[in-house]
């Protein structure tokens, strides 16, 4: 199709409603850097973006700012003041080592999360949208691991923990680690490492005794996200 024929589709592309064959035709023009279509879709995207001004403005919760920033700015762990008072000079060096190590680990974890979320090869599944809680998303990457983002987790007693399970299409659930919820009852939990995505049936979370278990307590599974 010619640029002139595609001109009327710039805005349907920007809005995300364009159909084939126009979508494929326009994509081809964009991929070759068409000097008419590229500025055309830019202008259309600018137009579509202005539609955002019709959205009702809502103040986000204050914790969201902290959540956003924390993933790129490693949190400072609580300084062990009581221990510090009792420590000798040699132990202070150990404290420094601990802090450095912790920050490094946090930064590495943040990078892992960033990578798996942004990698186009990651498969992502939403779960729980039609039930009150919990709700969230699972990202699965064949080499980088399984990332769980979940909100509306139940409040647990002190002797309980959340445990993630990788459930193959055939076979028993595999324990994937325990995690705790943030104060707002959300959690980001990453199980790094390779995953056989061809055999992966679901990712689930159960409530277990502190320390975790090797087999899930069936009636304590709070959600399972099928990996389709």
């Amino acid at each position, binding site marked *: 199709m010619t640029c002139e024929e595609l001109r009327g589709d710039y805005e349907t592309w920007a809005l995300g409603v364009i159909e084939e064959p126009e979508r494929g035709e326009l994509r081809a023009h964009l991929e070759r850097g068409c000097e008419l279509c590229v500025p055309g879709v830019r202008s259309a995207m*600018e137009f579509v973006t202005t539609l955002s001004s019709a959205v009702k403005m809502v103040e986000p919760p204050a914790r969201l700012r902290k959540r956003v920033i924390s993933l790129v700015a490693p949190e400072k762990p609580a300084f062990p003041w009581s221990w510090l008072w009792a420590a000798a000079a040699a132990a202070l060096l150990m404290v420094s080592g601990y802090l450095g190590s912790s920050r490094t680990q946090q930064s590495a974890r943040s990078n892992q999360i960033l990578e798996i979320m942004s990698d186009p090869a990651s498969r992502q599944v939403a779960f729980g949208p039609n039930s009150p809680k919990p709700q969230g998303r699972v990202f699965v990457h064949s080499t980088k691991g399984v990332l769980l983002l979940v909100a*509306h987790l139940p409040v647990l007693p002190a002797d309980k923990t959340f445990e993630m399970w990788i459930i193959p299409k055939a076979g028993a659930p595999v324990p994937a680690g325990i995690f705790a919820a943030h104060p707002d009852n959300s959690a980001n939990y990453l199980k790094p490492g390779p995953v056989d995505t061809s055999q992966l049936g679901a990712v689930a979370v159960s409530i277990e005794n502190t320390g975790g278990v090797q087999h899930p307590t069936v009636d304590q599974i709070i959600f399972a996200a099928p990996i389709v």
Partner: protein
Amino acid sequence: MLIPGLILALEASEGDRDLAIRLQKRDPHAMAVLYDRFGRVAYSVVLAVVKDAGIAEDLVQETFLRVWNRVNGFDAERGALGSWLLAVARNRAIDYVRSSGARMGRNSFELEEREHPAIFLDMEKSIFNSDQARKIKTALTKLNENQQKVIELAYYEGLSQSEMAERMGQPLGTVKTWVRTALKCLRDELGRAVSV
């Protein structure tokens, strides 16, 4: 409804170039500035689509991470940071409602290409001024019921025209006409013809 906060946030494009450069240099404090500038707008857009505050928080977090992770592909000199971030935010929300509605067939790649940083070049930095917002509001009220419906289904649910036709029980050609006339009406009201 006019959105003063939105307008103010998106008019604050002065300094976007410097902010983008700081993000590219992996300055964590730049992320805080980015959030303070666009967090409220992004949250509002995402919430309007997913209609769940908890999910909206997750998706806004994902939005900012995605921008952080891809900002090195953004042209700080020519790019419109706010427009890009808002497109990413809406795409994350649309991706969520599509995947949760088992409409996985046409999402990821299509959304990826619509949020590529190279798209957001040479845009006006102050397109979100009060006059523009007033025109949008006026234009939306001038659409007939069917035109408003297709714009809502497209903007808030990410439906294709075929999906709209199925949802509304109307022929595809009819829906395409509604979409096209609705967009033209909005564009005319804004006085923003697509320039090629």
